[in-house]
């Protein structure tokens, strides 16, 4: 390959992540951007910049995520399932269950020895169990997404939301606000609603300890805490959870 650095790019529905790893698989560079409508150009620019910064113009590249087929420069296109499994296995070094909550997809992946995907399950045609659910709610409440998780953990009070649909949950949330219910219990209820869907998917897929959580939503502390309670299992967030897919792609490229 002629390069000690390998690149992985993950063109997700919400964000685009680029990771560079060295020969040992350690992360040496990363960047995260909101996915632009012009995904192909965005990916090309990110890759060119990383190669320039790292002084590795020939660094091999593997692309993953929904937009992976737009990356002409990539040696291979690999699905995010395989890449997430590889990325997380690198961090843990042992078989595990990975729950990845992305902007549009939630996946439960059973990872076996060597980071091999044994089986996987994904959410069906509904975004209620994904990051989009929280994004829509945060936007409606005019709260930054990073403040959303901590707010849910502010107290034990919780307002149950009966609806599992993003659109109906939004109307339900507005009715609660109109009744004068405080923000934190509503936000906690929203998190609970999302986590229940994710937990159902995980249980159906036969989730077993250790359980890891990746994807952008893993940065939300309330999701992790409530998921642990729902599953009755410890949920570990690996370092750089949002980068797991791109990291795995870089490992596959190296």
């Amino acid at each position, binding site marked *: 390959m002629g390069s000690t650095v390998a690149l992985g790019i993950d063109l997700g529905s919400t964000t685009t992540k680029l990771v560079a790893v060295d020969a040992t698989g350690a992360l040496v560079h990363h960047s995260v951007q909101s996915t632009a409508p012009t995904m192909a150009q965005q990916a090309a620019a990110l890759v060119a910049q990383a190669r320039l910064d790292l002084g590795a113009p020939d660094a091999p590249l593997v692309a993953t995520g*929904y937009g992976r087929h737009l990356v002409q420069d990539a040696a291979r296109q*690999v*699905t*995010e*399932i*395989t890449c997430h499994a590889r990325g997380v296995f690198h961090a843990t070094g042992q078989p595990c269950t990975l729950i990845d909550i992305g902007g549009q*997809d939630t996946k439960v992946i059973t990872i076996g020895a060597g980071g*091999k*995907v*044994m*089986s*996987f*399950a*994904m959410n*069906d*045609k509904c975004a209620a169990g994904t990051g989009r659910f929280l994004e829509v709610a945060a936007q409606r409440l005019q709260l930054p997404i990073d403040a959303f998780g901590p707010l849910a953990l502010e107290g034990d009070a919780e307002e149950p939301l009966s609806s599992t649909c993003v659109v109906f949950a939004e109307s339900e949330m507005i009715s609660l606000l109109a009744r004068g219910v405080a923000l934190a219990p509503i936000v906690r209820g929203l998190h609970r609603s999302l986590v229940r869907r994710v937990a159902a998917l995980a249980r*159906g897929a*036969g989730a077993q300890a250790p359980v890891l959580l990746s994807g952008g939503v893993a940065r939300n502390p309330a999701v992790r805490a409530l998921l642990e309670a729902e599953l009755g299992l410890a949920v570990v967030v690996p370092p750089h959870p949002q980068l797991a897919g791109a990291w795995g792609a870089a490992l596959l490229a190296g």
Partner: protein
Amino acid sequence: MSLLASARYHLNVDLIGNGFLRYERRKLERKLANPRPHPHLGPPLVTAAELKELISRHYLKGRYASGHKPVAWVTSGAPVEFLQALGFFLLYPENHGAVCGIRRKAEEYCSAAEDLGYSRDICSYARTDIGSVMTGKTPVGTLPRPDLLVCCTNICQTVLYWYRVLAEHFGCPLVIIDTPFVYDSASDHSVAYVLRQIEQAVEVAERVAGRSLEPDKLRQVTQLSRDAVDLWMQVLERCRHRPAPMTAFDAFIQLAPIVEMRGEDFAVGYYQRLLAALDQRIADGVWALKDERLRLVWDNLPIWHRMRWLGERFAERGVALVASTYTNAWGELAPLIDPAHPLESGARTYLHAILNRSTGHKLNVIKGLVSDYQADGVVLHSDRSCKPYSVGQIDQRGRLVGAEGVPALLLEADHNDPRSFSEEQVAARLDAFLEILES
């Protein structure tokens, strides 16, 4: 029956239609003799032209059947041998629904049914049929008005309500044959109960047809059914060969005669020629895929509106669908058909339809296909429209992946309604599944 209608039938079907269809068949045969090379798929089956002629002639006969022959609309799993023996022209709304799906007309007809108040949660075959009937639209010319409706519940319960809608619309007699669910094997009283209903159905059909059922004719038709089903099973079993001479995508299309021409002599003739063509392919080393690397089993109905897309996607990755529970269901009951006892064996045969049996039975069928066809994995199409076929799939997948160690994927789609199909999501799941198999 009227003389004028019979004259019109013979003129349009036997004189003009047959000549035209034969000309079209020859044209297609010439085209098939020099097929355009495909990067991943082998040449098409040489019998494709004959199959097209058979199906076109079936619908052409239907177009001119009213007044010449009694017409019955039947569910796909209904006992039809007595109807064939009484000279009925048989129309299968489900099969017509599949044709609408392949021709990309189903969405329009489903929407028409929804506009009339039928919920989107109802089976897309039912919505396609009701929409087609109510608007009078069909891609096959004209559908003959039924003189009799025969509805057998061995495939689902939706047909009960669907056929009542048809009965009300057409104002014709409706015969319901209720088949008790079979958990293990059918009890004697279940067989007796279904037999009694078939006998009652015969009485109604005789009244509609204006003639009596001739036992010899019934035995003869049942023998033809048995022969066609036996041959169909042999056709499918040719795919046990590695590499496979055809795939389940071919079988989904080749299925048409066994469904809608069961009990007719030309169905037997066709499957004899198809079997010979497959043997020839095996002898000549001609395979469905240019480079078969993986073999999969398919569960549930096909996704009619995406057959080509899926077929090419699999072929590109060297994946052959070598068997399916759906095509297998039309052959696995062959040993139960006994021409010496047509009605009794019919009761037993139609009770044992796969959708009238337990989810454990279906799991065993899948496991058998995996082993017999040396498959590397299973794709379970979770069909939004077909609840009886899809129920139990999560557990079936769990057992396959767990105890059996067979990779299995659950794919959400709908057999006829393209609005319940998301190309990107299906592609993402398929690609990830194939990566597991390839690793």
